[in-house]
């Protein structure tokens, strides 16, 4: 903790002349959309948990389209928020790098990237379901993967709701 505060205090002084944010603004619509998508995804996994056959794929086709469409729209919303100034991020990265902390800053919004991965996962599940059906074990693996990405997206979006701002 002492080491962290030791890094944060000088970094703050370095940045204090700048009135810019380092992360995007909180958007309640995105946070609410994520919660709604999580519920729909878990319902889908519950409905397919015993495994599926390709012959019954038509019954699930519309659900896949709806889920993937919602996820892509949310990812787009999360990505399209105004970005903080790159120069401020560069200052932070440079300062940390000088102290041996190297961050590979891709400039990606973490929740948007996680949502894109959920969409890719669901698209793969849909394609396999359509071709040969998915085993119960595969459903569990798809679900495990989606839950990990959902946790990333939800934690990040909720963290953006800075208190008092």
């Amino acid at each position: 903790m002492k080491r962290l505060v030791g890094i944060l205090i000088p970094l703050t002084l370095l940045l204090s002349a700048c009135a810019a944010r380092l992360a995007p603004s909180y958007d309640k619509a995105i946070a609410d959309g994520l919660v709604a998508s999580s519920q729909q995804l878990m319902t889908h996994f519950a409905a397919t948990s015993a495994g599926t056959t390709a012959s019954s794929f038509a019954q699930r086709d519309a659900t896949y389209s709806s889920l993937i469409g919602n996820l892509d729209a949310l990812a787009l919303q999360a990505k399209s928020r105004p970005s903080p100034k790159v120069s401020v991020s560069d200052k932070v990265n440079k300062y940390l790098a000088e102290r041996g902390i190297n961050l590979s800053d891709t400039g990606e919004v973490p929740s948007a990237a996680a949502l894109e991965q959920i969409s890719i996962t669901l698209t793969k599940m849909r394609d396999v379901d359509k071709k040969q059906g998915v085993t119960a074990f595969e459903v569990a693996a798809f679900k495990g993967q989606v839950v990990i990405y959902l946790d990333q997206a939800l934690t990040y979006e909720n963290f953006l709701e800075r208190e008092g701002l």
Partner: protein
Amino acid sequence: MGVPIDISGLVDQLRAAASDVAKKDISVLKGFSERQIKAIAQQAQLVAMGIASGQITEETQEFFLDSLKTMAQSFANTLQGLAKVTIEKVWNAMVGVLWGAIGTATGIDIPALA
């Protein structure tokens, strides 16, 4: 005429402002990291078991294996994003303290940072 800044008191206030934010946020970051590491490890175990037993078919094997790498990368990316929010919050808390001290010392009401 304002009052001179008490450097020692100001340093204590700055340290307290930074620590308050950092303490709270670090517990969130720690909880998130623990959940993710455990879940990714469990996912790796599930994929290995499924491939060994043939319950993960050839059609999905490569996808699940590649995804483990992507998941770990996405976890690191999220952690970095969370850390940036914490740095920003510490910055705002400390600038508030500095502006308050300067305002008191100069008698000028300095508007808060946007």
